[in-house]
């Protein structure tokens, strides 16, 4: 039957050290997923496009950051390169290719994205080679881990969680309070009317796509020191962030955050209790949410 290891799970839930370690690792998975998923959800909310190639931006972010770090040795510059490079890529991708298939049906949009998943993976293979790469932890973070209630928390993890939370707050407030946020929400609601009012919707679309790409790239750049880099690395992240957006509700930023944390916890604790069925748990959870609430937990048109 399905392999279960409930002893390991209950044992961990009983010990505070293990609890802290697993919760932190759940948060890390969740926060990286959130950065990818929030871009996905934004692009869907405004452009009504399911960006199937979003994982590729995550991958490029990681590779850009690695190269920038190897050349300059600066961690900050590496993050900047990862984010800015993918933002540019997103802008070009949207303006040159995606904008041509807005009117046509969903299948065409998915196909264009699918084509780019294939192309981008091969481009990375050409430039950086097919083997696993690693960026290495920057010197600034090579310090002793913190011990919280007996659990081990590397300082880099705190930075990661911090960045993701800042992004969540800035995006949420930016969309709700600023003028640009208002225009974006309006464009999501009724693009024809917005463009009739003299606002360049093409620019907004390109901008939102670039922003989404940038966030995925930032996630990739942040993940580069702790994960190994390989062509096709974006794929599992893409599938998981799909689950996150679907659980949270397409188009909802808060939904993406909650969904990402939930999936992070399922992965972290599930790997103890159901070592081989962790992924299955996520899909099962997704099925349950979708069947009971087809629009997701926070499914309303936000952005």
């Amino acid at each position, binding site marked *: 039957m399905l392999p279960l290891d409930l002893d390991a799970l209950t044992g961990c839930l009983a010990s505070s050290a293990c609890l802290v370690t697993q919760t932190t690792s759940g948060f890390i998975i969740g926060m990286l997923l959130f950065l990818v998923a929030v871009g996905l959800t934004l692009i869907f909310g405004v452009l009504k496009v399911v960006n199937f190639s979003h994982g590729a931006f995550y991958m490029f972010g990681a590779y850009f950051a690695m190269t920038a770090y190897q050349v300059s040795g600066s961690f900050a510059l590496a993050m900047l390169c990862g984010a800015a490079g993918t933002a540019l890529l997103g802008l070009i991708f949207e303006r040159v290719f995606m904008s041509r298939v807005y009117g046509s049906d969903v299948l065409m949009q998915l196909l264009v994205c699918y084509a780019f998943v294939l192309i981008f993976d091969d481009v990375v293979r050409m430039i950086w080679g097919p083997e696993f790469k690693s960026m290495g932890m920057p010197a600034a973070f090579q310090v002793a881990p913190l011990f919280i209630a007996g659990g081990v928390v590397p300082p880099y993890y705190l930075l990661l969680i911090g960045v993701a939370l800042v992004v969540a707050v800035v995006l949420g407030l930016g969309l709700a309070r600023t003028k640009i946020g208002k225009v974006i929400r309006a464009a999501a609601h009724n693009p024809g009317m917005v463009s009739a009012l003299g606002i360049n919707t093409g620019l907004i679309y390109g901008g939102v796509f670039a922003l989404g790409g940038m966030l995925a790239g930032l996630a990739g750049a942040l993940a580069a020191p702790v994960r190994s880099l390989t062509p096709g690395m974006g794929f599992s992240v893409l599938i998981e962030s*799909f689950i996150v957006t679907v659980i949270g509700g397409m188009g909802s930023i808060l939904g993406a955050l909650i969904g990402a944390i939930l999936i992070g916890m399922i992965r972290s604790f599930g790997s103890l209790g159901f070592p081989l069925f962790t992924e299955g748990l996520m*899909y099962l959870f997704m099925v349950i949410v979708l069947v009971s609430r087809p629009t997701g937990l926070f499914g309303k048109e936000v952005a």
Partner: protein
Amino acid sequence: MTELQAEQGTVVPRIESQSQRSRYRDLLIALVAFAVLAILPMLTGSKALLDFVIRCSAFGLFATSLNLLVGYTGLVSFGHGMFFGLGAYGFGLIMQRTGLPVPIAFVATLVITTLIAAVIGAICVRLKEIYFAFVTLAFQMLIHSTILSWVSLTGGDQGLRGGIPRPAFFGIDLSNHVHLYITSCALLVIGLLLMRQIAQSPFGYTLRMIRDNATRASFVGIDVWRAKLTIFVLAALFASTGGIIMALFVSGAYPEFAYWTISGEAIFINMLGGVTTFLGPMVGTVLLLILNDTVTRLTDYYGIVLGIVILFFAIGLRKGLMDFVVEWYARRGDKAGERG
């Protein structure tokens, strides 16, 4: 009898005789196609060509059955591959574990597929558009994860190994390459003919109506949910048959058969060939397999070449090859008509 009734009286038999005639035509085409495929081994000794046709049969059935959902009913399933995998694993496991005769194992696999498809379909077809796509994808991945983790039954990521026993039945020995080839062709032709019948039946037109306007269909008194569920299960059966052919061909079953990429490939095949004609997916299958075989032989960067081809179809043509051909043909006909 009022004038209206009288008119209806004459119209209905005409449509019926027409559909009768097109049914005979389909049958004739199927017989000719099968005859051509069947004499192929006598003309050529090329094993590679026969292998190619067997793979076309497996993927052709699978892709055409997806078109029943996508093209005819407007249900964009992202998890259709789960039934392909289910067919391959179901058949392989039954043959390995029980040693039943092939036809019984075949029927048993289809029964299992029906049950699972009915449960999954009952949950999925309630949902609309993109959510339907996501839930089917989730079920696909759920089945894939189950296959990976249920090592004692499925062999986990190694797949079903050790070969699938193929005892002879009715004088057909599936371990003989030509016998396997003929059986695959027969299954393909029969499968396509059945799907064609479904597509051209009143039920098939009901599906088109649901695709175009589900609300109106339900006002006319059609039970939309039931019609969608029925076609979901029927399509699953043909996909499962494709999986069985694949399992027989490779003499095993692998987790990739149930991975989402197999669904992605089927969608791509549909787009490549075109979803507006019945044979579009079949044409797409042949195209994709030829493309696969030649490109992997010529270059390591298979993804780039395939990606550019996809872009050409999606952005350049904006439709499948058969759609393009049909439209071109119609346009040419119009022009000829104008001239004459």
